[in-house]
């Protein structure tokens, strides 16, 4: 196992920058998730780490040694691909042992390691089959197994669960987590699914347009998003976010949004000039009886997701979404009153978090 360090890595395809100035450090044994919308450069970053795509600038170090000049085969990394990329002309056993065979490991050792991996993943019964005879879930396991057999310094996983159906996906996610706890391997995992990122990652790296927007523990990223992109990208339903001004006219600061205003209570704020973005998550809103400091909103639509309800409302000329218990019953057009947990307000100036 090993630690991974990236310094100022950049990559251009033609004129578009796929990666710019990426810095990253993954501890030995850490599960690091690269999260971002499609086209954000996360897969390119993975390919750069693997050595499949050369970076234009920057350094990649494994255990403190530069691996920039090494071919993929010499970097001692393993990769699980989105399409699994199993060799269609080889049996499962051959697929699992291929990496070792290429490295001249004796046959007996290969056989033993293949059997170990197969039993670890519960695919012992499939060893003599060809990939086309396997189900999607079985293929996925073989793909993981192929990476595991070799016990490399670093595992790279490129959206390994995205081709599984939803139910299977959450099972495999759980197994992956347990596997990592048992084997203590260093993992870089690419996904666009925030649930995967939050449940699997010890460290989450949020990327957009080839840049790292925030790095941190999942709960940090959720509770203290560094900018408006991270704030809205993470969390479902999305964070409520409003453009407006903070006015310090009366005894309390007041947020003036489009068509509404909001008393910010005793919140200690340094005065800010100009527009800010104010955000709060749907679960930090409570429905209350009308009162002096409550916020009246008009119910527009209710989505019932079973375990709870999302209430979509109108506030001024903006929309506000909140989470309500499953037994809440409102009808569209009704006026309800809200209070917002002011300790959980997020304020962004120029898109960047203010503290």
């Amino acid at each position, binding site marked *: 196992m090993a630690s991974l360090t990236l310094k100022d890595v950049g990559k251009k395809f033609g004129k578009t920058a796929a990666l710019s100035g990426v810095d990253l450090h993954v501890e030995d044994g850490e599960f690091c998730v690269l999260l971002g919308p499609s086209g954000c450069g996360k897969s390119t970053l993975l*390919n750069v780490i*693997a*050595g*499949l795509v050369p970076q234009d600038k920057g350094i990649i170090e494994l255990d403190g040694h530069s691996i920039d000049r090494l*071919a*993929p*085969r010499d*970097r001692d*990394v*393993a*990769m699980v*691909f*989105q*399409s699994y*990329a*199993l*060799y*269609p*002309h080889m049996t499962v056993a051959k697929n699992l042992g*291929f*990496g070792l065979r*290429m*490295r001249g490991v004796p046959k007996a050792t290969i056989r033993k390691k293949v059997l170990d991996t197969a039993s670890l993943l519960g695919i012992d019964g499939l060893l003599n089959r060809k990939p086309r005879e396997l189900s999607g879930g079985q293929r996925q396991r073989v793909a993981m197994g*192929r990476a595991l057999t*070799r016990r490399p310094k670093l595992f790279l996983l490129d959206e390994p669960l995205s081709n599984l159906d939803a139910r299977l996906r959450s099972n495999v996610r759980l197994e992956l987590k347990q596997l990592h706890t048992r084997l203590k391997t260093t993992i870089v995992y690419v996904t666009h699914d925030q649930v995967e990122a939050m449940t699997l990652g010890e460290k989450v790296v949020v990327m957009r347009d080839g840049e790292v927007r925030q790095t941190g523990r999942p709960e940090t990223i959720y509770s203290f998003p560094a900018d408006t992109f991270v704030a809205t990208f993470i969390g479902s339903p999305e964070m409520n976010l409003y453009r407006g001004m903070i006015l310090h006219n009366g005894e309390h600061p007041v947020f003036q949004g489009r068509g509404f205003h909001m008393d910010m209570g005793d919140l200690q704020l340094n005065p800010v000039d100009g527009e800010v973005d104010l955000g709060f998550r749907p679960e930090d809103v409570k429905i209350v009886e009308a009162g002096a400091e409550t916020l009246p909103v008009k119910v527009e639509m209710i989505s019932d997701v079973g375990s709870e309800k999302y209430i979509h409302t109108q506030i001024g000329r903006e929309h506000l979404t909140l989470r309500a218990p499953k037994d809440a019953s409102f009808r569209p057009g009704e006026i309800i009153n809200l209070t917002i947990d002011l300790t959980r307000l997020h304020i962004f100036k120029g898109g960047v978090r203010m503290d």
Partner: protein
Amino acid sequence: MSREQIEHTIIRVLRIVGILFFVLMVAFPFYWMIASSLRPLEEILMNPANLGLDFRKIDLSAYYNVLFDHGFVRYILNSLYVSIITVALSVALATVGGYAVTRLRFRGQSFMSYSILIIYMFPAIVLVIPLYVIFSHMGLRDSVNVLILVYLAQTLPVALYMLRSYFKTLPLEIENAGLIDGCTRFGVIWRIIIPLSAPALASVGLYTFMIAWNEFLFAFMFLDTPDKFTLSRGVVQLAGSVHLSKQLVMAASVLVTLPILFLFLFFERYLARGMTSGAMKG
């Protein structure tokens, strides 16, 4: 009957008539080639319009004659040698080159693809005189090995183009998996690309074999020594020397036709696919 039904009936009749017409038109010359090669010369002369083949009177002497008296054993070996070497070289070089054009990044990549296509359309008749001149000048003309090089130049661009189109359909991730699992570039080609491309390689090989086996113009122009003749060259030679013995010429024609037809029957699927993937020339 509705118009729909009337037309359906017409179409059914047309189809049966059409298929019979085509089967007769295509199969008859092949049947006649074989039948005449088995029929003694007197029989042909006496009764040229006899369509049937009397199995009691089958006469294999023409084959014996052609093979042993007219040197066709030698020609068959020469043709096999030329064709097999051409196939081996062409497939090997086209695999490596096709991979380079598909997957590696280098300057002039798109130029390469265009020039392949242009060369695909170059006609042999334009090349044969200058090559004849230069090889005569160097004293190299009358040689099967030179012939192989010429055939290679005829088949390589097309073979490369066919394989390139096929390689493009192979998922990049599988190659990346191979690179990470420890293959070199050539390892990827040998252990992953080639096994996955077996059908395409078969069709390229077959196509190349067909070109080399059937080729007439260069063999006719270049080869002077009977010992070096390929089959096509040999048949023309034979036809010129035994003008009247149609039986011999037909037996020789059968000898040059049957191997390629059998090979083709075995691999028909691949060949049809290869043809429509922009491979054939003629």
